[in-house]
């Protein structure tokens, strides 16, 4: 089934790749000159190489953390249901938008609104996803082609609904806490620690990384150690046999689709105090999640996490030192190579 689905995915992936190329063509002109300048001078006109790299790694880690959660949702839905959820990015957007609503109605310390959003937004996205599963995916019997078209429809409905009710503005959510942390660096020549200009992160960004690690571990534990995880894995392995053993596959599908959307929404709640809620914010995460899931292997948790780290960190580091375009080009190239030489993904298993 996996083998059958991947070639069907191909046109979509090629389309995405083309989209990237077209959007980024204009940016790429600067890349070559900047690259030459920086390798010739050996250092950056602003910050030294070491501190700059540390900053890039930290920024990349925040991106990778959120990406891992989002992509995991996409991977889970595909792994268990064999549904390519094109609306996944919109559930991410939904999470951010609901987080804004929750945070704006709850008065008092911003942490209260944030914690409430952390609970309510994923639940809300999960409920919407479950309803969508019942109304759209189930009636078409989870047919791979029909579900792609169906989820494209869900994508537009959610996006335009957000535009109508939430509006076109980017709206901020206040972080529960946010302290600027200046980071020290060791100067070998002078033999002492110092604080380079601009080398800093915020406590909230560190929290996002830590929270994502905790959520990923919890998710992994649920999937491998709990009864519901066992049921999901059984459904993933063989739908018919699972059904024969009395597993309510229909309900498992709804649950999984909701869980996938909830993960995306949770990632969005974490990022929304850094980036604002906006009705178009689902596009990038969807694209990157597809890249991650294809590289890591559809349906593989381990592959998804590894690929998210790879893509998130390379985006942070390459875009700092070379150009943002180049990092996107490399990611797309990697997708192409994986599809050609290892269509099941780095960690995917080739099912019969």
């Amino acid at each position: 089934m996996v083998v059958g689905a991947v070639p069907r995915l191909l046109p979509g992936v090629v389309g995405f790749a083309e989209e990237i190329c077209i959007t980024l063509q204009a940016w790429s002109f600067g890349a070559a000159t900047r690259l030459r300048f920086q390798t010739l001078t050996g250092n950056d006109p602003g910050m030294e190489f070491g501190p700059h790299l540390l900053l890039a790694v930290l920024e990349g880690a925040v991106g990778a953390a959120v990406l891992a959660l989002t992509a995991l949702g996409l991977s889970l839905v595909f792994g268990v249901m064999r549904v390519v959820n094109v609306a996944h990015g919109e559930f991410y957007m939904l999470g951010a938008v609901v987080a804004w609503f929750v945070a704006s109605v709850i008065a008092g310390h911003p942490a209260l609104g944030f914690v409430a959003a952390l609970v309510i937004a994923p639940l809300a996205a999960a409920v919407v996803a479950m309803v969508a599963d019942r109304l759209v995916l189930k009636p078409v019997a989870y047919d791979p082609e029909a579900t792609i078209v169906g989820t494209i429809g869900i994508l537009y409905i959610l996006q335009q609904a957000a535009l109508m009710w939430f509006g076109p503005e980017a709206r901020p959510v206040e972080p529960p806490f946010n302290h600027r942390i200046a980071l020290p660096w060791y100067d070998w020549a002078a033999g002492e620690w110092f604080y380079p200009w601009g080398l800093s992160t915020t406590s909230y960004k560190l929290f996002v990384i830590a929270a994502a690690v905790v959520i990923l571990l919890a998710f992994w534990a649920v999937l491998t150690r709990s009864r519901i995880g066992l049921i999901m894995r059984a459904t993933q392995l063989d739908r018919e046999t699972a059904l024969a053993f009395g597993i309510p596959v229909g309900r498992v599908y709804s649950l999984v689709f909701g869980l996938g959307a909830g993960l995306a929404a949770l990632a969005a709640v974490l990022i929304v105090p850094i980036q604002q809620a906006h009705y178009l914010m689902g596009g990038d995460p969807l694209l990157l999640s597809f890249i991650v899931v294809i590289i890591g292997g559809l349906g593989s948790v381990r592959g998804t996490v590894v690929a998210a780290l790879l893509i998130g960190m390379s985006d942070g580091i390459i875009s700092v030192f070379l150009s943002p375009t180049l990092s996107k080009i490399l990611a797309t190239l990697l997708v192409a190579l994986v599809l050609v030489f290892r269509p099941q993904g780095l960690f995917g298993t080739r099912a019969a």
Partner: protein
Amino acid sequence: MTQSFKTNRRTLIKGAAAGGVLAAAPLVSRFAQAQSSAPIRIGFQQHVTGIGAAYGRWYGRTTDAAVKKINDEGGINGRMIEIIAEDDGTDPKRGAEVVGKFASQHDCDVAFGTLFSHVVYGSAPAAGELKLPYFVVSEGHHVASGALNRYTMQPGITDVKSQVQAMAPYVAENLGKKVTMIFPDFAFGHDHRDYFTAAIEAQGGEVLEHIAIPPTETSFTKYFPKIPRETEVVYHVMVGPAVLTFVKEMGEFFGPSKPAIFGFIDSLEAVDMTSPGLEFLDGTYFWEGMPRYAQADQTEYDKAFRAAVGVDDNGASVSDPRDVSTYAHMFGCWETLHIIKAGMEASDYAGPQDRAKLIEAIEAMTELAESFEHPQGPKLFNGKTHQVFGVQYISKVENGKLVKVHTTSIEDTQYPDEADYTTMAF
């Protein structure tokens, strides 16, 4: 009670036919009258969706307010204005299609309203081919540069070149001479890069580093280390939905040791100045096309304009204080519609056959006094380059509000003509 009310094809057709007759009835009577009483149809190319949607929403509200005012005062040559709004998705290709629809499907007299410069670039050739007068409200330098055509004009808002040029003397005198520029990596940002770099050099300053950021970027901290340490002034202009992230992350990057910061309000258009994370902006400077906050020396025109559009003294919607307007730009729609009215009245515009006369009448305009029709300030229209020139404002952030500290002259914003559209054939 057993009778069923099933809809079948026949009843549907009957219903549709009846509905069609009913819908067409007012049209019949309308066209039975003399043509002079038919409304003037203005195609409004609006960024309803896409990255320009926040601007599009306020351009829409301003347009509605201007049309209401003009119609309440008797319309244009006794005819009412009818706005036909079409969404261009903030997309150049769609923009050209929309202009085509205005000309061939909607029978519009003129088209107006485009903001984002790439959409103007994409749409203007269509307007030229279809001979449809096309009034943009974009700030882009493309009109005055001569790159477009005789049918495209920008009479209601000044262009980037004149804006940045007028900023350079103030920046060099009051903030510093070593500047690092951060701008979006497309036409609009390149206008900033080219014209400000030249203008600050003319003031004896220099730009140490140009940092171009892709317009769809969502995370910005990684770009800031490129700011050279000897930078005295950071000049920033950013557009799109991620502007608040950009400004916040800039504050977090600099921490307590920030250089002077000068920004174009585009970086925070439609964003609440009191948003969390923007506290560091206190004491920094912004260009404003029109001051968002009602100033101590507020003119009666600004007051009346705010009331007409529904904007409070903080530049937000009167019905929702969190719904912040694009105040530095949207006056352009108001002023452009008044120019169209003045041009149509001066040329005795009766219909599409008079489009060339309309353009000539507007090309003949020069001084436009500050008034309820032109609440942003006095202006000077250049008929040759199809571009208006006007005063610019510099505001300083004090306690989370923008307070006007400097008003440029019109002369500060002028530059030698780069084109003469009046020599082009219609």
